[in-house]
């Protein structure tokens, strides 16, 4: 695949290529016990910017504390409450279920950026991200990205704002060539899928842009209308890392986004 000039972001995390991830980081003394021991994510709020989350889905475990949606207006889109707490696809509920399975104590907030309006989808996504940064969440799962060159600057500004504002953005890498914001910015935790069927297996890739590989092949996930399905994609790898990040943030409230990322790297499988 490599000779095809493709951004095969999953490739470093698959099969024999994993041997090349060997990396002697400066964190020999930090183990998973120190990073995750005793944490269930309590006290951490995770926003999931996606297709919505079904409040009553068993996989969410009643941890959805608020639902919002982006509403387009004649000017900038606005974020309003979404009391129905619906998921128009099932995808957001899948991500929420994965995060809840790893960090059952974390509070989940849904910011739905998908709806009937197809115009300005990048702007809707940006509005959802701005809302999350400004409303006290400390981990944001972004299993989606924007291709709009016009929004490059805005997303760059927002990821910096999040980074400096102590909000950790976890973003799924996009496998299709071309720009993809904010998943390829250095201030986010970017994630592609690996093929090991274990949520507690993740890899750090010292050769960015995509720095982490997590469970994303044939993942048993929640889906809409209380259902479940088996799904594959970087979309489902990102929430695994978001869940791990929530655990670290709960156990180490003083850790900054950079430090959380370093702890994820230090405790990755080798």
């Amino acid at each position, binding site marked *: *695949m490599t000779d*095809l000039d*493709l951004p*095969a972001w*999953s*490739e470093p995390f*698959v099969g024999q290529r994993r041997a090349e991830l060997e990396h002697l980081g400066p964190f020999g003394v930090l183990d998973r016990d120190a990073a995750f021991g005793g944490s269930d994510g309590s006290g951490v709020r995770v926003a999931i910017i996606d*297709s919505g989350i079904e409040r009553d889905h068993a996989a969410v475990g009643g941890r959805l504390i608020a639902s919002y949606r982006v509403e387009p207006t004649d000017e900038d889109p606005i974020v309003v409450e979404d009391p129905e707490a619906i998921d*128009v*696809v*099932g*995808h957001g509920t899948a991500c929420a279920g994965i995060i809840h399975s790893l960090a059952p104590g974390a509070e989940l907030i849904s910011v739905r950026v*998908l*709806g*009937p309006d*197809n115009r300005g*989808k990048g702007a809707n996504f940006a509005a959802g991200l701005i809302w999350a940064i400004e409303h006290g969440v400390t981990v944001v799962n972004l*299993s*989606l*990205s*924007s*291709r*709009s*060159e016009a929004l490059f600057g805005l997303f760059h500004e927002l990821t910096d704002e999040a980074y400096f504002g102590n909000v950790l953005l976890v973003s*799924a890498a*996009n*496998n*299709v*060539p*071309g*720009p*993809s914001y904010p998943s390829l910015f250095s201030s986010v935790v970017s994630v592609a*899928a*690996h*093929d090991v069927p274990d949520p507690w297996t993740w890899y750090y890739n010292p050769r960015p842009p995509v720095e982490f590989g997590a469970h*994303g*092949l*044939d993942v048993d996930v929640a*889906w*809409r*209308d*209380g*259902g*479940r*399905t*088996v*799904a*594959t*994609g*970087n*979309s*489902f790898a990102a929430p695994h890392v978001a869940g791990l990040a929530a655990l670290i943030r709960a156990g180490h409230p003083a850790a900054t986004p950079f430090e959380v990322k370093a702890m994820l790297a230090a405790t990755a499988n080798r």
Partner: protein
Amino acid sequence: MSADRRRRLERDALSLLEAIAVRAEAGRRLQGDSGRAVLRSVVEATAALFDAEAASIALYDAASDRLVFEVAAGVQGQGVIGLSISPDQGIAGYVFRTGQALALSDVERDPRFGRAVAEQTAYLPRSIVAVPLVSDERTIGVLEVLDKRSAASFSLRDIELAAIFARQAATAISATRVERDVASLIASSLRALAAGEEPRTAAAEAIVAAATADLGRDDESGLWALADAIARVRTADPAQLELVTDILDALGRRAGRDTRRRRRARPGSDAGEVR
């Protein structure tokens, strides 16, 4: 410029555009709908390579705000052609709206997954991979592959492979859109020239005169500048049209003055070299 000369130039431009249009139309008919043919070959190659029951391409139609299935391969895929779905629902909708490729492999467990679509096409897939078609940083549609025969689900490599086919399809679509744009540009130019509406005709005449004057020296740029300018004039609102006419009039007067001045200037002198 005399009225006679102006009419002659307009006639020349018109017949030139007609000749191009006839050739473009002849080429199009000989090739069939080249865009659709390429898309069909992409889905056929995709289905064959994956050894899949079906593969299809849906393109976004902004006018109806729907994703429309344009082509499909495989016996199980045929029922989907012509079908349209809302772009904010289902797997195809999610992939279209987020640009995020994904695969589902236990589709029947999803209680409402594409049930409506599946009922219309009389085929409910077990597994599906969907990747976006990206052209000029925009997602313009979705490529789907249904039910790989050799495996119960799609691998990470399958997603990347599907993305390669999607790139082929997106390139083909961009190319045909350019082709179609050129054809419609010529058609609209002809309509604008032949329409005979008073203000437009006046503006078109002036532009035709200006552009055809250059045709001998720089065929390509003169011709396309002409077609382009006419197309823009056609879509101008009355106020813009008036402005264009005024500018052209002013330029025409100045060009006349410059010519007269150059005629007066001695050879070697740069007086009058205003251009």
